[in-house]
C-alpha cells in the first residue's frame, strides 16, 4: 500500500495531489512529499523492515512509490564501517563511515534515482533525464537502462570526456551544451517545461530527493536502532542534508528509534560554499556564488535547499564548515590510507570538515559520529594523480634492494 498523502508547499503549505510537479503554483515554493504516518506506523516495525531486501526498498513504505514493481539495481544498504584507524588520528573513539562508494553506479545518487525512476514509470514517463557533471548522470543512465526507458543526460560541453564515460556506457543520449554551468541550468529548466520527460531533479524532484532519507534509515538500523550523536554530510544543493534529518525524525516519530539528538554538520568546499558562508554570517539568506573548486560533485552555486539546510542546522544544533581544495585532497588521502576507502572529492570535503569539527570542539572524543562518504574515488582520480610515485628499479634484485635502501627502508 502506498502512503503518500500529498505534496505540500514548504513555504505556503498549499497541498497538491501526487503529480510530477516540483514548484508550488501559488508562491513558487518547493514541494515536499507528505505521508500518512499513522497508517505507516501500523504497517511497519523493526521486524518487518529486517525481513525486507538489502536495498533501499526495505523502507518502501516510507518512500513515495506505489504498490507496483520498482526499478531495482540493488541501490542502498551499503556498509556502515567502524573507523578506528581514522578515528585515532582525528581524536575520535566512536567514528563510523557510511560507505556509499559501493552503490551500483558508485555514488549515493543511485538511491535518489531508484525512487525517481520508479515514480517516473508510475506516472507513465518513457524518458528519464538530468543535467550532471558525473554521479547523477551515471545513476540516471544506469537506472533508465534497467527500466527500459530512454535517457537524456545534459553536460557542459567543456566537461572532460572521462567524466561522462560512466554514464555514456549505459546508452543515454548525451547532450553537450556549449555554455556556462548557468546556461545549462537555464536550458534544462526550459526543456523540462516543454518535453514530456521525467527530469529527475526538476519535475520529479520532490520524489527523487526522498531517496536520500534511506541514508538515515540505514545508519539508524545499522547502529542497532538509534541515531548517532553527530552526522557530517557533504553539501551541494542541501537536499541530502535535509533528507537525512527528515529520515531520523521519521524513525523517531514512528517509534522505531528513541529520541533523536543528532547534531547535523555540513561540509562544503570553500570554492563553492554559499550555505557555509550564510551560516558563518548568521543569516538564512543564501547568496548564489560562481563555483570554483576541484570538488565538482558539490559545485552548486545556487543551492535549492540552502535555506532548509540552514534550518536543519538550527533545529539540530549542528554547524557548518568549509575546506580548501588542498584539504579536499588531504581528506581523500587520509581516508584511503587509514580505512582503505577511496572516496571522491566530496569524501575529501567530509573528512577534512570532520577534522575541523573535532578541532573546534564541536565533536567530543566519545561521541558517536557518522561521516557520510557519498561517492567513489575512481570517478575523480585526476585530483590525486600526484600520489602515483613508483620506485623505479632495474629488473634485478640488487636494484630493488638499493631502491628500498635509498628510500630509507630496512
Amino acid at each position: 500500500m502506498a502512503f503518500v498523502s500529498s505534496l505540500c508547499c514548504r513555504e505556503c503549505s498549499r497541498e497538491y495531489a501526487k503529480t510530477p510537479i516540483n514548484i508550488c503554483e501559488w508562491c513558487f515554493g518547493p514541494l515536499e512529499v507528505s505521508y500518512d504516518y499513522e497508517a505507516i506506523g501500523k504497517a511497519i516495525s523493526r521486524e518487518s523492515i529486517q525481513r525486507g531486501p538489502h536495498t533501499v526498498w526495505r523502507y518502501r513504505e516510507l518512500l513515495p512509490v506505489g504498490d507496483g514493481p520498482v526499478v531495482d539495481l540493488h541501490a542502498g544498504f551499503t556498509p556502515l564501517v567502524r573507523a578506528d584507524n581514522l578515528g585515532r588520528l582525528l581524536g575520535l573513539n566512536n567514528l563510523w563511515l557510511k560507505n556509499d562508494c559501493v552503490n551500483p553506479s558508485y555514488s549515493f545518487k543511485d538511491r535518489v534515482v531508484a525512487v525517481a525512476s520508479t515514480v517516473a514509470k508510475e506516472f507513465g514517463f518513457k524518458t528519464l533525464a538530468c543535467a550532471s557533471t558525473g554521479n547523477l548522470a551515471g545513476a540516471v543512465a544506469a537506472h533508465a537502462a534497467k527500466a527500459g526507458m530512454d535517457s537524456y543526460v545534459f553536460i557542459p560541453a567543456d566537461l572532460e570526456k572521462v567524466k561522462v564515460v560512466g554514464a555514456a556506457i549505459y546508452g543515454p543520449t548525451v547532450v553537450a551544451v556549449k555554455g556556462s554551468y548557468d546556461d545549462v541550468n537555464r536550458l534544462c529548466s526550459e526543456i523540462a517545461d516543454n518535453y514530456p520527460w521525467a527530469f529527475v531533479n526538476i519535475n520529479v524532484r520532490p520524489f527523487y530527493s526522498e531517496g536520500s532519507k534511506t541514508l538515515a534509515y540505514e545508519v539508524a538500523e545499522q547502529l542497532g536502532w538509534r541515531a548517532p550523536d553527530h552526522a557530517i554530510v557533504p553539501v551541494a544543493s542541501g537536499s541530502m542534508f535535509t533528507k537525512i534529518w527528515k529520515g531520523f525524525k521519521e524513525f523517531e516519530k514512528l517509534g522505531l528509534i528513541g529520541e533523536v539528538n543528532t547534531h547535523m554538520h555540513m561540509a562544503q568546499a570553500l570554492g563553492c560554499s554559499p550555505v557555509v558562508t550564510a551560516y558563518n554570517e548568521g543569516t538564512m539568506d543564501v547568496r548564489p556564488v560562481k563555483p570554483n573548486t576541484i570538488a565538482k560533485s558539490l559545485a552548486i552555486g545556487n543551492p535549492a535547499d540552502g535555506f532548509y539546510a540552514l534550518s536543519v542546522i538550527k533545529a539540530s544544533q549542528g554547524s557548518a564548515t568549509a575546506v580548501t581544495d588542498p584539504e579536499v585532497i588531504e581528506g581523500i588521502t587520509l581516508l584511503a590510507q587509514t580505512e582503505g576507502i577511496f572516496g571522491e572529492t566530496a569524501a575529501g570535503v567530509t573528512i577534512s570538515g570532520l577534522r575541523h569539527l573535532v578541532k573546534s570542539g564541536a565533536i567530543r572524543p566519545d561521541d558517536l559520529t557518522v561521516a557520510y562518504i557519498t561517492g567513489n574515488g575512481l570517478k575523480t582520480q585526476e585530483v590525486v594523480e600526484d600520489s602515483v610515485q613508483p620506485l623505479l628499479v632495474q629488473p634485478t634484485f640488487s636494484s630493488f634492494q638499493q631502491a628500498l635502501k635509498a628510500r630509507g627502508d630496512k
Partner: protein
Amino acid sequence: MAKQRVKFTFPADRIQDPIIYLLGKDFNVVTNIRRADVTDNRGWVLLEIEGTQEDIDKGLAWVTARGVRIDPVGGDVLAG
C-alpha cells in the same frame, strides 16, 4: 505567448533601481511577482514573466547586463 519562472538576485548597488518596472515597460512583457525578500543591502525576487519568447530573452539579457543574477526558481539543476 511564452512564460518563464525565474529568480532575480540583486546586488546591493541595484536594490533601489526599478529594474522589474523597466523590464515590463521596455520589453513588453508581463511580470508577476510571487515571493520576494528585499532589504537595504540585498534582495531576491521570484517572478513569472510572460510575453513572446523573443521579448523574454531580450528582457532577461538586459536584466543580466544590469548586474542582476538570474536563476531557475527551483535552484540549480546541474548536479554532480
